[in-house]
């Protein structure tokens, strides 16, 4: 055979072989064993006791009943009462404002966002805006954007507004069970020092934050475990002596309207079940000790001798628990694209950076976003509205929906809707959204 033939054949066979050796090129995921997630251990004994049937005294028969006196509940009660509906507000502690005041989560976040013209402006008005304004006039809030308020001043202002609106207040009372007629909620059993009592209402607004009422009413929901913290405040932070020998800068938290007081946030343990009272109790005890030890450490640092622990929050900082499965689920996309809803009940702003479609959208570029009325409506239960951090949204949105500003907006929307439904003698599911928007505008809300 000639050399040239040989070369040619080698080339051909070489090429063919190279192709032949080759197999398809693709990296596939390694198969992995799916680890079983350990279920949360049942804290109860597993045994049951039957509660005897009994007659419950009827406390009141009202138009609107708001369960939970946090930012959403307070706004809802004020809004409903201002439309002329008789309104009861049930609150388990001795103050209004929930996590905002008693929980010491002092910043009213997401007050600002950019509009379509890229101007950053205030978006939260209405009852929430009124509260912020009153606090500012009292000199009890700092920062123009996302103001930080004084908790005692906020408790006072909220209570004054409730008083002015003529809401009937039930402090030290828990909403413990629902009174149902088929799929329609007729009222709520409340428990207090006076024992168990019933409050019948035409419309109930669930502002419990944990969604206790829609859970009891049998609606569908999603449960999200999140970190739970406990906020505390430090006093005398203005008397830290930085000139003292041996001074080391310590973390003493963030300023509040009162110069000598700082609030100290805690992220806390991750992935906590906020619906398990054993867990909450355990966390409470653990956190209090950690806070005490930390304050002791601060006090022992030269220059910090006068700092003291002013108070720990009256409730754990539960960030998230139940999320309603409502008529419309608000999505991250809705909040990023100026999506406009025909049944908008309020506009909320932005306070953190977000990832959207792989890109970073910083706080200063985040658009304002509308909240539709449908996301406050449960699918099953009639005459029930949901406001606060447990209304219907996508998990990706949680950072924006669980905060005070958004709660105030949804609360105002739900309250006004309930008031309108009473006035029009309509099922809240069928109210005229145009009229609702008109009413909200009358009440000072801003709808874009």
């Amino acid at each position, binding site marked *: 055979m000639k*050399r040239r033939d040989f070369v040619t054949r080698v*080339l051909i066979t070489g090429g063919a072989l190279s192709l032949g*050796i080759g197999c398809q090129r693709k*990296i596939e*995921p390694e198969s992995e064993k799916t680890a079983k997630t350990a279920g949360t251990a049942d804290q109860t004994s597993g045994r049951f006791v039957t509660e005897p049937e009994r007659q419950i005294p009827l406390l009141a028969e009202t138009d609107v009943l708001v369960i939970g006196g946090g930012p959403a509940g307070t706004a809802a009660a004020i809004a409903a009462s201002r439309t002329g509906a008789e309104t009861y507000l049930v609150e388990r502690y001795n103050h209004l404002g929930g996590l905002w005041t008693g929980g010491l989560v002092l910043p009213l976040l997401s007050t600002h966002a950019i509009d379509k013209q890229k101007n950053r402006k205030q978006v939260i008005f209405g009852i929430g805006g009124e509260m912020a304004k009153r606090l500012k006039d009292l000199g009890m809030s700092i920062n123009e954007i996302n103001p930080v308020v004084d908790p005692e001043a906020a408790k006072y202002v909220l209570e004054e507004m409730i008083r002015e609106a003529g809401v009937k207040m039930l402090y030290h009372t828990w909403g413990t069970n629902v009174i149902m007629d088929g799929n329609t909620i007729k009222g709520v059993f409340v428990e207090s020092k006076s024992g168990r009592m019933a409050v019948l209402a035409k419309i109930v607004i669930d502002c419990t934050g944990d969604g206790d009422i829609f859970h009891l009413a049998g609606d569908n929901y999603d449960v999200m475990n999140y970190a739970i913290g406990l906020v505390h405040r430090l006093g005398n932070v203005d008397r830290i002596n930085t000139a003292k020998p041996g001074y080391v800068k310590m*973390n003493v938290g963030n300023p509040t309207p009162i110069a000598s007081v700082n609030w100290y946030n*805690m992220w806390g343990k991750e992935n906590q079940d906020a619906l398990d009272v054993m867990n909450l109790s355990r966390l409470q005890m653990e956190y209090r000790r950690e806070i005490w030890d930390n304050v002791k450490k601060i006090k022992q640092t030269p220059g910090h001798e006068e700092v003291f622990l002013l108070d720990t929050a009256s409730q754990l900082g539960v960030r998230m628990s139940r999320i309603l499965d409502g008529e419309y689920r608000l999505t991250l996309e809705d909040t990023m694209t100026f999506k406009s809803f025909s049944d908008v009940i309020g506009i909320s702003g932005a306070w953190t*950076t977000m990832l959207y479609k792989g890109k970073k959208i910083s706080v200063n570029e985040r658009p304002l976003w509308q909240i539709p009325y449908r996301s406050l409506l449960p699918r099953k239960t009639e005459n029930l509205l949901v406001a606060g951090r447990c209304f219907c949204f996508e998990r990706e949105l949680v950072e924006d929906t669980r905060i005070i500003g958004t709660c105030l907006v949804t609360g105002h929307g739900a309250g006004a809707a309930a008031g309108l439904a009473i006035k029009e003698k309509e099922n809240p599911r069928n109210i005229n959204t145009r009229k609702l928007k008109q009413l909200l505008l009358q009440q000072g809300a801003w709808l874009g």
Partner: protein
Amino acid sequence: MKNLFRSSNLRTLSFLFAVILALPLSWGAFTGFYTWLSPFMMLNSVLTIKTFVWLNIVAFPVLIFVLFRKRWFCRNLCPAGWCFDRISGLNKRRTYIYDRVPDIGKWLAILSLSSGIVGLPLFLVFDPMAIFNGFFTVFSGKMHIVAILSFSGFILLLAVHLFLPGIWCAKLCPLGGLQLVTDDLKTQVNLLFRKQKPEAQFGSGRRYFLMTGLGLIAGVAIPKMLKPPPDNVIRPPATVEPILLNTICCRCGNCIKACPTGIIMPSTDYSDIPGWMTPAVSFRSGYCLETCNLCSRVCPTGAITLFSVGAKKQLFMGTAVIHLEDCLLFNNKECVKCKESCKYEALEFVAKENILNMIPVVDKNKCVGCGACEVICPSDCIEIRAITRRTTQ
């Protein structure tokens, strides 16, 4: 309709089609589809990596067609050739005949293929589809001066044609050269079948032999001569080793154009000139989406190995490093962005001293360096660092 399939019209149509697909207009998996048509690219890729992807098949009809119709691809489909012809047409003075110029393209093709078999396709970057597609990368924005210069090679070639009309297609193009090789092979095979003596027609056998040998030696020797490229560049997932990348990446810019978040940039590192225009990752505009494998799907050469979306968690691009002093969480602010953005569960918040001082901690075995946390971090305290551990097949 009849006119449509006339050669000249088909070619213009093909050119327009190629331009549209080459422009960075979010064509997804079809970005720069013409690069798949080039048999030169396909053979280099398949011979070098010794594996194939199904899309390589589209180059086979072209390879077979040119056996029956000489230079069929050049005459009917090649968009680069269309441009060169138009420019050459502007030169009205005379027609050049380059009889005395050797078939450079043919030898480039042979050198490239033979060096590719042993691991380093030397002249893959001269593929006309790569040059043509690469030029349009300039329009993807965010370009560096080096990138614009490099991708302007196409403009330079166009300018050359004003003075030397037709020179590229006739003599320089390795894709054209490859068609000459297949032609020679066809002749040879025909002769073998007919049991005729091949001497008369197959005169260049000696040169084939020499060039192939030279290519093989170059393919073995050159990688040993090169100094290893810097290791601090973050590459797209499943990118081949840096030395191989420098030659097997044809600089077509498909990955840069296809990337939905625009994080793939041409490398313009002055200390690594052989690596210019290879894909590098910068997380300024986004992160490597956990649901995306477009860069690997559009890569016609296998420089970015095709991977399935599910495999992303084992394809390490880098790893996150957190500078705690600026971390909001460490400073007791409410921030969970890095953990929330991590799609690989590689970030945990742990108590540093006590529960009041939580810090984010990266699990290096899970963090693939997708950059989501770097992008999202409101205080810019996370940085992705390249790591040497890469998964390739």
